[in-house]
């Protein structure tokens, strides 16, 4: 019973600590969302801590949808998203009384991986679609002299990469039911690396020990290998922006963090995580967006809506 008593006292001590924590809350930024961006966000958290020892950043993964749902719940300060934010999601944020801001913070090339011994020269987007829709089931269907069955690896449907792929590659059709759904890009890489029959997709920066397939926008066009240049100039067809989403004009620690993310130091971390830093003009645009939101929060609605100018094609 004495033990129980001690335990209960301990519990109350913890409850007493909550006061202190409320004060601490001002020094903590929570960031949830895209698994693709988890490593990037963790690097940001770590480097930001060195720059600003008084602030701390809590990072959680789960997928872009998780982050935005958490933003809707008010359970996170920032959401990391590796896909465009849906208009309905923005509406939801506005209904909560905020003026949401969607900031482009990095460029990612969505790479298509195969096993290192896979001699597949290239794929066009239509063949890739046929594979992932289950219309082409064998390697011989897409131009490899190999009759074996293709093993498809994909991501969980909570991931922004999943949605991006569905929208831009599959033309909004469904994945084949056989697509192995793995809980992280790393799991996809690991699977493809050990599977000569496998094909997978995910962030460019994760690729170790797999071969990146050059992708042609349409049949007949030259296939493009993803790298910094082709991703940023738009010649690689599967390049996209990565986003940080805010439910309202940021203040305090959150504001310091997103400003820092757009700074040289913040962007330097991007390359280290396997993504590409923003082109200079995009970075300027995002900074302006932030400043506008601070000047007049109401304006940020216009500045942040998922308008076509935000897509990567427009920034070429």
């Amino acid at each position, binding site marked *: 019973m004495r033990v129980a008593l001690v335990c*209960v006292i301990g519990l109350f001590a913890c409850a007493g600590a909550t006061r202190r924590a*409320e004060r601490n809350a001002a020094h903590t930024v929570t960031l949830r969302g895209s698994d693709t961006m988890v490593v990037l966000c963790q690097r940001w958290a*770590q480097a930001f801590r060195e720059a600003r020892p008084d602030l701390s950043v*809590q*990072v959680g993964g*789960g997928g872009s949808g998780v982050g935005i749902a*958490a933003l809707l719940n008010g359970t996170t300060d920032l959401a990391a998203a590796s896909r465009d934010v849906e208009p309905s999601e923005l509406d939801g944020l506005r209904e909560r009384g905020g003026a949401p801001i969607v900031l482009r913070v990095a460029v990612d090339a969505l790479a298509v991986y195969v096993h290192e011994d896979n001699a597949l020269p290239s794929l066009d987007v239509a063949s890739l679609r046929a594979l992932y829709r289950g219309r082409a089931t064998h390697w011989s269907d897409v131009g490899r002299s190999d009759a074996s069955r293709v093993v498809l690896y994909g991501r969980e449907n909570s991931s922004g990469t999943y949605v991006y792929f569905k929208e831009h590659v599959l033309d909004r059709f469904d994945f084949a039911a056989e697509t192995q759904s793995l*809980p992280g890009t790393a799991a996809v890489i690991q699977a493809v690396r050990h599977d000569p029959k496998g094909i997978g997709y995910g962030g460019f920066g994760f690729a170790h020990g797999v071969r990146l397939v050059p992708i042609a926008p349409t049949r007949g066009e030259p296939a493009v290998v993803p790298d910094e240049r082709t991703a940023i100039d738009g010649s690689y067809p599967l390049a996209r922006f990565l986003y940080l989403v805010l439910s309202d004009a940021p203040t305090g620690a959150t504001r310091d963090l997103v400003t820092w993310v757009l700074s040289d130091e913040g962007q330097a971390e991007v390359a280290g995580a396997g993504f590409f830093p923003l082109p200079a003009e995009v970075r300027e645009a995002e900074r302006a967006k932030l400043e506008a939101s601070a000047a007049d929060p109401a304006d940020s609605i216009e500045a942040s809506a998922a308008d076509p100018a935000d897509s990567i094609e427009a920034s070429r």
Partner: protein
Amino acid sequence: MNRGDRWLAWGSGLALATVLFATSALFGVTLFEGVPRLDAAFFVEAPDASMVGGGIGPALVGTALVTLLMTAAGVPVGVATGIWLAEYAPRAGRFGPRLAILVRAAVANLAGVPSIVFGLFGLGFFVLFVGRGLDHALAEGAPVWGRPGLLWASLTLAVLTLPVVIVTTEEAIRAVPDSLREAALGVGATRLDTVFRVVLPRAAPGIWTGVVLAIGRGAGEVAPILFTGAANYLPELPNDPRDMFMHLGYHVYALSTQSPDVDASRPTLFATVLVLLALAFLLNLVASVLRSRARRIA
């Protein structure tokens, strides 16, 4: 030995050998691959951002905190239930034994509820119902309580481990001979005095067995904390029951599915698994030592 007997022995022996082989393979491989990575710093440092280097400090602390809070919240309730079942229910009139049957049925069913359903319950009840309710009552809607955190994860795990504590407590108390109770009551002690001064000390090793088993169960479960408080990466230690936290088990899941370079993080991963496994092993060992002590006393 007759041929049929030999077949039986070999067949059933093979089944058992398979189970034991699988167990030792799991432990062996983890030891073999995990030990080289272990050093003092591994237990203290935070994981680094790329999930390759660094240690498991925050995950260890997070696991310790969540199990501590879980124990603080769950054990008193579990022990009280055990006491009531063993000491009070049989004497609580016509109603007691019937209620006891119901309680036992609930305990058995609680033990069988899938851990992911506890996760749903934790999210639906603690985070969304209680937490949101508190927010509306205290903080005018600002999400202070109504988000996943250490407290909610602990309470979810406390409910999950309740059956272990209840059943072991009841068994331990039942093993205390009636003569002791009668002696205490005979010299004028009240029933409560008897329970707390005579029965419980005697049943303590058995009750501790349950507590240790509950801690082992709670420390290893991941599914219930997926939505109720575990964070992917959080070098900060939680300093508030409402903060999110890192957890060894969740860390294993995150490392093995979300690490950017699986080969590079493999040693770290195995070392983390080794620590988790060693923890389960140690707690199990402590529980069986306590159990044999309890048997000896009773």
